[in-house]
């Protein structure tokens, strides 16, 4: 599956637009990481445990989006956007969406 955040792909032509595909995942922070993060929070800086957690969950959201596109028979997703939101205390939602298309060699 070809994934890009632009509308057009060089060297290819959009043959068919199949529609919007999306994937999301909500992750709660975990207590062990949280204690460490709490200490780090005093001095500030990067919270590496959280960076990893967010990367993992964003990958998961992307995978779900890709699975949906595959089901529709797409071979690419264009104009992908990512958003993140804190939806409850201690939980974050990762959301990925894009347009599933069939690309052809131009």
């Amino acid at each position, binding site marked *: 599956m070809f994934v890009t955040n632009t509308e057009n792909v060089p060297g290819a032509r959009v043959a068919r637009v199949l529609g919007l595909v999306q994937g999301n995942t909500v992750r709660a922070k975990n207590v062990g990481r949280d204690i460490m993060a709490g200490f780090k*929070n005093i001095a500030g800086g990067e919270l590496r445990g959280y960076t990893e957690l967010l990367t993992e969950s964003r990958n998961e959201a992307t995978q779900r989006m890709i699975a949906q596109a595959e089901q529709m028979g797409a071979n690419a997703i264009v104009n992908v956007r990512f958003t*993140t939101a804190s939806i409850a205390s201690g939980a974050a939602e990762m959301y990925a969406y894009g347009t599933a298309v069939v690309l052809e060699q131009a």
Partner: protein
Amino acid sequence: METFLALLVPVILPVLAAVTFGYGIAMGFARRNRLATQLAAEEPRLAHLVRTNTQPVGHSGPVALVLGNVAFAADAPSRWAASWRTLFGGRADSLTMQADMARRLATVRMLHQAERMGAVAVTNVRYETSEIFSGRSQQSMMVIELLAYGNALVPAPAAGSGADQR
């Protein structure tokens, strides 16, 4: 026990607060300095990767999605100072600087990913800032996530006709 209780409010709590504060300030400065050094080394090295937030024009090689993210917290003393700042409003300089640093770090990570692919440019860059894991205890924890993503342009392989990408 009695002496502990007697000392709790006048001595122990202020000392704990001062130690936490001191740790926050000292460690915070050390961490930010390290990050600043790291950014100062990486940014010029990656400067050859052109970044735009528009669509690519006239590129015929492969493209790929690249991402960089960082979960970042500002130090507690700065946040505390900024919470006082809300009385009069105005600029919170320390937080401005830290948010900027975190965003630059996310950018550098995105560019690293692009560099590994042998890209020459990253186009259509989008930035996103979000507050995560926040809730009622906003005061005690502040974590922001900075995400940078874009479309890396990789030069077309020079094999065959030798056609060059523009």
